[in-house]
């Protein structure tokens, strides 16, 4: 298994990044930091899926006059472009919700918010 992981080091790196993001989400108390952790997890998934499309020695999938195979896989790139845009939208909404929480309660620390109820 270790040997297989070594050839798939890019995928293993995205698992590590995912765990770092999850650690932030669980342990951080500040809502913005929690959300940064979520963004790190998103980035890990994006990096993993883009890495799936890499082909050894492949060029960008652009069919110019002097383009020659192999090309990298265009589908993961297109999917992740969609994913990034949706991630930006959710980030914008989450940050504005955090601003709203701060305006109403004066704090964005999760434990202080819990005591407030």
């Amino acid at each position, binding site marked *: 298994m270790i040997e297989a992981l070594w050839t798939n080091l890019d995928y293993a790196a995205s698992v590590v990044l995912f765990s770092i993001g999850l650690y932030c989400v669980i*342990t951080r108390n500040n809502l913005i930091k929690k959300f940064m952790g979520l963004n790190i997890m998103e980035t890990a998934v994006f990096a993993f899926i883009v890495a*799936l499309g890499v082909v050894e020695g*492949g060029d*960008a999938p652009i*069919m110019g006059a002097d383009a020659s195979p192999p090309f990298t896989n265009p589908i993961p790139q297109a999917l992740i*472009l969609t994913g*990034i845009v949706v991630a930006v*939208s959710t980030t914008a*909404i989450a940050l*504005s919700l955090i601003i709203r929480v701060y305006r109403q309660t004066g704090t964005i620390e999760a434990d202080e918010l819990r005591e407030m109820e």
Partner: protein
Amino acid sequence: MKRASVAALLVLIAIPLLAAMAELPPHGSSETPAYTHVSERYLQRGAQEAGAENIVTDVILNYRGFDTNGEVTVIFTSVVAVAAILLLRDEERTSQERSSTPVSPVLLFIVRTMAPFIALFGMYVILFGHLSPGGGFQGGTILGALVIVSTVVLGPDVAHRMVPAPARPWLQAAAPLTFVTVGLAGLAVTGHYLGFPSGDEWGWVGTLMLVVIEIGIGVGGGTIMASIFWMMEEER
């Protein structure tokens, strides 16, 4: 105690993930199922069939155009949601004085000098998205970043003039509007919603429709970036 349990949880989650990663086909192999079925066809015929030399653009705007149509609706919905969350106020807010830290002249000079080039680069990325790396979302982000930089350095008054207030709602909705318009044009021409004419004779019409969508996405995306920033910036 808490730290140890969190570490244990992370290891518990990471081990199955790593085991699954080890089972995947080797990184960089061209024999993977992900590469040998659909994308092989896209790579072989995409440039003739879908109207753009950049296959990623073909996938986004043509093969999976419905997906992108929903996606531009998502970013438009996000700007509406941010406005709904931030602009509806319960209490009357007293107008606060903006902090008036003087901007460094070096920064001013650099931003003023670079702004036209950044705008030009953004438009290049949008307009050449079908021939080179780039496209509407990427170019729109560059244009949005230009407006945000101008807001921070040159002040909101200068930046607000870049996106005139009467046109702002229309520009925010530009991406879904152009998408639906081009989709309906495709319906009229080919009989399918988002159908792009292809072939030697009508291929240029398909490419033109792709470029129009790219411009719509770029302008709309840039305006949405800048608008979200402005709404959050007013909170200071």
